[in-house]
């Protein structure tokens, strides 16, 4: 697909045709523009707060003038915004590949908890492991009600209050703002050290949103995604349920994993225009959540429960091992239809086992285990996808 996907509205845009946002300073004798609700931004992202107006650059701006002037107040500005949704973009947006990684899953799978813990891991352990500067990106104009606030509230709820998160409401009128991370990392090319910034955009879909193909925003999101993490709830596998003897409250999702995959596949085929006779080339990380429930079943020495080596690269050998063990587990649990579906529809996919909380929560009371959050392998799907995009290196390739 041409261009780069805007991490906020998911439209493909050219990094050379970005618009500018007025700085509101005006010029001597002429007052600056004042914030007002940007209809385009509201339409595309649901952001309905007043913000300064956006304007296109003059044609010669790229070569003649780095700070084009606002047509209304003649003030200069260098703040670049998406030409579609007018959301401010980082200064180096478009300078490097910015994979847009989608996260989808059925209702009750635990996507919000997973995304919350993944975001926390990105800013702590994952960042340290790769020596990367990982920061939450977003509108800095006092927009505290956006993803920054969303993430802080969720992290506080899970990590501090030890509470599970409430079910994410379906996006109806206002859309939720995606969670966008800047991943800034040094890498070597041709013997030289270079710095590159990648932007990772996650959109927390409500599970029900996927049940209807009328949600155009979700369709846009899936259509623009460069890679996908599909979170599946192993509790929906009948044999897993029987073996784990789960409490009734743990059954937060009542939709079979195969059905979820099938719907995602349909959406992807629709948006990417993949005909029935071909496989979808989009890399898909199929992550089985809540693997902590299998600790006793698998035993302490099971390979799936090992803590991966903390090397600054994706461990391909370990990844393959995990993939094969999950595949075996699927067959053991009578869920081989999941694998068949994936093999017949995707050319690049890999299985993962993750646990966002590290221990089964008390589903009745909505409480995280008293020992706190101890995530297991939550960043592996992301690291694999980043390795596919070249953001992180791969170790142990075949």
């Amino acid at each position, binding site marked *: 697909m041409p261009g780069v996907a805007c991490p906020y509205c998911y439209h493909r845009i050219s990094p050379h045709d970005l618009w500018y946002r007025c700085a509101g300073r005006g010029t001597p004798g002429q007052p600056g523009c004042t914030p007002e609700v940007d209809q385009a931004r509201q339409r595309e992202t649901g952001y309905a707060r007043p913000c300064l107006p956006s304007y296109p650059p003059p044609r010669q701006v790229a070569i003649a003038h780095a700070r084009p002037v606002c047509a209304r107040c003649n003030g200069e500005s260098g703040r670049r915004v998406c030409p579609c949704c007018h959301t401010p973009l980082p200064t180096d947006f478009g300078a490097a590949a910015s994979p847009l990684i989608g996260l989808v899953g059925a209702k009750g799978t635990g996507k919000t908890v997973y995304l919350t813990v993944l975001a926390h891991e990105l800013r702590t352990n994952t960042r340290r492991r790769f020596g990367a500067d990982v920061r939450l990106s977003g509108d800095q104009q006092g927009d505290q009600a956006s993803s920054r606030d969303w993430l802080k509230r969720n992290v506080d709820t899970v990590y501090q209050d030890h509470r599970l998160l409430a079910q994410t409401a379906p996006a109806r009128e206002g859309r939720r703002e995606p969670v966008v991370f800047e991943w800034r990392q040094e890498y070597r090319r041709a013997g030289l050290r270079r710095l590159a910034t990648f932007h990772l955009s996650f959109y927390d879909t409500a599970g029900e949103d996927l049940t209807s193909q009328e949600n155009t925003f979700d369709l846009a999101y899936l259509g623009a995604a460069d890679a996908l993490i599909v979170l599946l709830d192993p509790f929906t596998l009948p044999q897993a349920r029987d073996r784990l003897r789960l409490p009734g409250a743990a059954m937060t999702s009542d939709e079979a994993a195969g059905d979820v995959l099938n719907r995602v596949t349909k959406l992807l085929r629709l948006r990417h225009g993949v005909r029935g006779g071909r496989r979808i080339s989009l890399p898909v990380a199929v992550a089985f959540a809540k693997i902590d429930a299998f600790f006793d079943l698998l035993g302490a020495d099971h*390979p799936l429960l*090992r*803590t991966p080596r903390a090397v600054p690269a994706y461990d391909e050998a370990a990844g*393959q091992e995990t993939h*094969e063990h999950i595949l*075996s587990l699927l067959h053991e649990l009578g869920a081989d239809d999941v694998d068949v579906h994936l093999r017949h529809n995707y050319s690049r996919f890999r299985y993962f086992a993750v646990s966002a909380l*590290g221990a089964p929560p008390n589903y009745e009371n909505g409480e995280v285990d*008293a*020992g706190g959050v101890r*995530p297991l392998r939550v960043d592996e799907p992301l690291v694999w996808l980043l390795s596919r995009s070249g953001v992180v290196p791969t170790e142990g390739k075949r």
Partner: protein
Amino acid sequence: MPFDPASYEQEVLRPLRGRSGPLPGDLLVRYAVTTTMDRPDLETHLRHVRTLWNQRRSGRGSLAEVCNRLLSADDELKRASDMTDPAWWRTQAHAHDAKIKPMYDRLVGDLRAEHGATGLVTRARLERVAASTPDLGLARVAAAAAAAGLTVVDAVDLPTDSGLDRTIYQSLRGHLGELAVGTVVHLLHPAPAGPYTLVSAFAVAGDPGARLDRATLDLRTIEAEQAADSPMARARKSALSILRTGLANGADLRMIALFHVVDRLRQAHLGEALLLSMATDLGLDRADAALVVANLPAGEAVPKRGLAEVGELLERGQLSEAEAALTVLPASSPDHATARSLVEAARARFDRLVRDAEAAVAAGREGTAEQLLAQAAAIDADDAGLARLSERVPPAPPRDVTATAAGGVVRLAWRAPLSRAAQVRYRVVRAEGRTPASERDGVVVAETTDSHAQDPRPPVARDLRYAVFASSGRVWSRPATTALTVLPPVSDIKLRVDADHVLGVWVTQPGVVGVRVRRTVGRPPAGPDDGIVVPVSSGSFTDREVEEGVEYFYAVTAVYRDPAGRRLDAATQVESAVPRGAAQAVGDLMVRVADQGSTGRVLLSWSGTGEVRIRRAATAPPWKQGTTVPVRLVEEYGREVAGPRRSTDGLTSMEAEIPPGHHVYVPFAIGGTGAVVGAPVVMGMIEPVRDLRARRNDDLVVLSWVWPDQVGIAEVAWTSSDGGTQSRRISRAQYADENGCRLPAGRGGIAEVRTVDLGPNGTAVSPPVVVTVSGPAVRLWYTIARPAGWRNALSRQRVVTVRVDRTCVDLTIQLVLCVGRVMPVRAEQGTDLYRQDRLALADGTPHTFEVGIPAAVRKPYWLRLFVPRPSGVVVLDPPVAEMKVS
């Protein structure tokens, strides 16, 4: 000019209707004749005029009457003269001009005097002047106005109503007066740039943007809301609120403003010149001011006196004004009788209320009198007699006066009288043996606006009478009284004991003539005369008739005498004491945590079995070890450590529950001379972690626990099965970042977690919480490779090498081939390629064997090693690429 009957009727006949007296003297006007008419014209004209008169005389009404009178007069003239002669008409014209000349000149002067100030006169007013001077006629009156320098203008309809409700308009007028704002215009434009117009439109000279509209009103409202609160600010907000409401109900701000100006001018009852000045002073443009004044109804200079005004004055509580208005209302007026009855009824009611108020005062019902006078004031607030009477009526006395003696002072309290007075002040007067008769009769104890007071130096043993008077002006109320005799008891009784005696001391108030002490044994005295008398000397007693260990109660009573010499006893005070010897300081207190893992329980022990109190505090006591201090001071230090005690072999121990933190434990040995301070012990104890759990994942142990509140550091000690130890301190933040506490599992071990608190008194550590972690059993790993050499690159032979991390025997290993994409997880899922039982493997010595893959097997297939026996051996698979052939 042909005769126009309609015009003639309009201009000549109709003005004569209802007019008594002679007909107008100007015959040329009466007959509408001009001096230019010749005889034939006159004949024709007069015929037409008379025909019209005859036509109009046939009807009924005033016009017919006029025509009859004209026809009668015409008969007289016809008989006396030739009315068809033009010369006769010219003679009549000259004669009339000469006759009315003085009248005309006077009218010119009058008009100039009346309207010269404004220079304007309305057409309607000129018509009324003409009607009152029929000899002159409208044309001459208009000529007189022109000669007086007046401009005739059309009348302007000044508003007769503001558009607001009448009472609301009155409120608006009141608020404007309170604000000292001249007009509504000034309310909305506090400083207009120049004179303004209102009559046809609102405009301010020099400020074309000025408007009387909602926007301006909103702006002023916002300014008023932001202003600091004050009576003026409140009045401004109220006025603006009235305008907003009026505007919402369809009123016009310009009409309200114009009506207010007209209303003020009407109320002024001034002549035109002064009204003009007043209007311009209100800011009106001069031309607009002249127009308004010129259009004011004639006669506004004369105050109106009528039934409406009388009613209005009575409603406002201005009876005297109403009576004045009645006097100028003509007796012939139809309203006079009604107005008079209203005024007389109000006067009668006023007089009755005043009489009733006087009677209420005489009966001691001051509150009722106050209410009646308030009602009378509502009828005639200006009555000077009523004001004087109100000043002389005292308020009701205060209610429920109480007096209490405590600590040598008397505290008095009362409730406010039932009075409408905004502020009431009180005077408290004290007398001995009698009730103060007035506010000056006795010692003034206090004068206050509060409803309580204090007598700091009351005489003791006297019959004290307190009277509280109230006043809201110059007159004091009747007294509210209470009586009291002050008998302060002894205070600060101290009993010092030893093994063989009790010493008692106390403090007495001035006026005490003696102190009586009685003693009872084992129980408090039943009354002041119960028990054995203990001799007192020099303000103390020493009771030597006591036994060690027995509790004695001492009743101490202060004795006073009144002026008559009678004995008065104060309230008896009781204290108890147990004689005993001096205690020995405890120097060997030991404090330790009671049970491992329990929260907040300590075990205290010390030698000796005497009475010892252990107290704990955050800081050390202010006394040195061995100091004897009063027991009451000990009780002010920290908190008592309480718990069940046990004494064995001269050693006392106690288990107690205490909150986490650092504490200084101090033993106080209680003896007859007081408490002896023992050696303090400092110990910090904090709450341990809860719910410690360990989860081993392969070679890593993840510890998790619940942190106690307020604890941020934990110390983790790991003792592995092979005897190695390591420890680390982990903070809460590290714990959150690392997702628990991670330790290398090795072959298992024991983890101990203690919480740590670093405080100013040192480090406090919780009791340890322990968890045991089992390590993995034997680890076995293997590799699968083709035989060496390039010729074996496609070989179906495989070399399998097996290693273990420690020596083990009796192993069964099984290499399985499983066809398909899916990795076998159990040996039964494939077919054996190799199996060996009772295998013994040593650490560092690999076991190698070779297998061949049958030719019939097709890709994809898996090779995987299993260890069926013994259980617990952990098999570490090689990379997938070695196991999977696809």
